[in-house]
């Protein structure tokens, strides 16, 4: 793939704009809250698009196109089953606690609801996860640019990290969020022509359905048994593992996305942020799943004349990760090629900046201010926040080089993340809806859930992974294994939290107002117009999601 002047020009314009946004926002940064939490005054349309953009990083764009090629239309489960319901739940039930408690972060909510040790456990694990995620995003970007454009690996790392550092250092969270919105439009508008042209070239959806195996064009029909579908999982594992544990664990408790809703101007906007974000999320498979399905159709013998191929990996199989770059290279002429490459770069930078801004908030508020230096001036914490931003980027660069040296570190880190994230939703669910839940219960529940996840992974093996204690059970696919690990860890956390809570003393009710559902006055501020009410909006979204599942059943 060779770039020309117009392509480079587009990439340079993009870099100038994202840095320019940092300089524009810099003038508004006067306090640590402005820098780390945006001062809770960002308009609804921006918080909603930022909410979805925070999840539109490299893994999302490249990974979902790759999954579309590998698993077919079943990949939509990550959206329609694995996102919409959880986003509606977050907006309707959980945002009132996050926003109403005035907590500046998810770990701080845990401190208010439970105790300091639960907050500390969550804050440290989250900070480590975000900085490693950011580094992996950086590594993947540099690797991709090295493979498809033959750019120097080191130069790509330092250039991308340098640009993210400039705009996050200057404008903090607001700058990152504004750029995320720009990146959202760039990714959607930059990849839309690709879908249209490739779909037309493949003869339309009806032709694709005749060319591909039916397992690749139906979302549910072949999920009765794990052997009968390409994902290797049955519908029960999917619904509980992905649709409940992993989905709610991510969308409802991960500070990276929740932080975007917490920036809203008021409670009404905070509740509607994830619900409005669910609309583009519902349509996102058109941009990131459909191209993968089209790519596999284009490789069928009947369409061989189109000349499209996805390169092979080192083992001789299809290198699914290269599906999107291959489509861009095949269909985009000079100019649009620059737009496509810029969209890819934007997705990586968006993922990295999101992680870094979440990291600096949690580190500054929940670790530094809580455990190291308390009661200093706001200016002190603003400077610390900026220094932590730089440190976060430097740690990311180090992680990127570690990932370069150890091929398996990405898999290992993703695994550790699932151990930590999997059980977390049980803690929040019990904490928000059962006033008897205690701090000791939450802490030991989280620890037990994480250990249960590690044990399950160590006793199961799938596609050669896991089974490091003893390969007791074999699972059809790695994805099925991830769902089972998440499910077991959730149940372990849920049961342990209940048991320990029943044996320990709960907080008095007076300390739980605004933190627990039964002790919190329900918001009545948006009861006049139906489109301002979160429950009708949520029900409409769920109804549309069900209809989409039926259409692609």
């Amino acid at each position, binding site marked *: 793939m060779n770039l020309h002047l*117009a392509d480079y020009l*587009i990439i340079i314009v993009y870099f100038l704009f994202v840095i320019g*946004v940092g300089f*524009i926002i810099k003038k508004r940064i006067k306090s640590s809250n402005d820098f780390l939490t945006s001062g809770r*005054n960002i*308009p609804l349309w921006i918080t909603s698009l930022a909410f979805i953009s925070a999840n539109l990083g490299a893994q999302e764009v490249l990974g979902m196109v790759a999954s579309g090629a590998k698993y077919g239309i079943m990949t939509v489960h990550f959206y329609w089953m694995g996102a919409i319901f959880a986003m509606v739940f977050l907006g309707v039930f959980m945002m009132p606690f996050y926003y109403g408690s005035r907590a500046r972060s998810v770990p701080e909510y845990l401190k208010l609801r439970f105790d300091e040790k639960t907050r500390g456990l969550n804050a440290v694990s989250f900070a480590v996860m975000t900085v490693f995620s950011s580094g992996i995003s950086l590594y993947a970007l540099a690797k991709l640019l090295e493979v498809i454009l033959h750019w120097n690996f080191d130069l790509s790392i330092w250039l991308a990290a340098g640009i993210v550092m400039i705009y996050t250092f200057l404008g903090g969270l607001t700058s990152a969020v504004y750029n995320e919105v720009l990146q959202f*439009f760039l990714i959607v508008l930059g990849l839309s022509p690709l879908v249209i042209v490739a779909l037309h070239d493949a003869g339309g959806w009806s032709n694709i359905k005749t060319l591909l195996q039916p397992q690749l064009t139906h979302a549910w029909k072949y999920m009765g048994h794990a052997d009968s579908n390409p994902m290797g999982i049955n519908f029960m594992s999917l619904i509980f593992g992905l649709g409940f544990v992993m989905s709610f664990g991510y969308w409802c408790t991960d500070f990276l996305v929740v932080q975007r809703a917490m920036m809203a101007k008021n*409670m009404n906007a905070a509740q509607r942020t994830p619900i409005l974000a669910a609309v583009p999320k519902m349509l996102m498979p058109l941009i990131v799943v459909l191209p993968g399905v089209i790519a596999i159709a284009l490789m069928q013998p009947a369409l061989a004349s189109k000349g499209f191929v996805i390169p092979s990996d080192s083992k001789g199989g299809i290198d699914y990760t290269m599906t999107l770059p291959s489509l861009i290279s095949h269909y985009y002429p000079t*100019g649009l090629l620059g737009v496509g490459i810029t969209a890819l770069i934007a997705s990586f930078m968006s993922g990295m900046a999101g992680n870094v801004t979440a990291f600096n908030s949690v580190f500054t508020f929940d670790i530094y201010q809580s455990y190291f230096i308390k009661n200093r001036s706001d200016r002190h914490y603003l400077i610390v926040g900026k220094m932590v931003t730089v440190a976060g980027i430097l740690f990311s660069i180090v992680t990127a080089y570690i990932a370069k040296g150890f091929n398996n570190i990405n898999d290992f880190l993703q695994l550790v993340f699932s151990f930590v994230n999997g059980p977390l939703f049980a803690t929040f669910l019990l904490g928000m809806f059962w006033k008897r839940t205690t701090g000791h219960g939450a802490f030991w529940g989280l620890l037990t859930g994480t250990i249960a996840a590690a044990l399950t992974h160590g006793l199961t093996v799938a596609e050669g992974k896991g089974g490091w204690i003893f390969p007791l059970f074999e699972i059809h696919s790695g994805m099925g294994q991830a769902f089972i690990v998440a499910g077991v860890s959730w149940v372990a956390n849920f049961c342990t939290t209940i048991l320990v809570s029943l044996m320990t003393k709960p907080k008095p009710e007076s300390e739980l107002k605004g933190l627990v559902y039964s002790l919190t006055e329900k*918001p009545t501020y948006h009861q006049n117009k139906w489109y301002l009410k979160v429950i009708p909006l949520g029900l409409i979204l769920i109804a549309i999601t069900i209809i989409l599942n039926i259409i692609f059943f």
Partner: protein
Amino acid sequence: MLKKLNNLGFVIGIFFSIIALILIIGGLLSESLSTRLNFYTGFVFLVFGVLMASFSKDGSPREETKRPE
């Protein structure tokens, strides 16, 4: 004009208008049929950019922080 730069919608609109001009000019200068795609996409980007820059409401944060109701 400078005040408008505080408006995110305006900034996004300008960005897409510039990208559109690069695509359209590139499409017009080339005789290749494949670059028609550049032209059409550029036109759509231009329409989006102009609409975004013209009609977006002020997306800049206010000075004061609103309290949750």
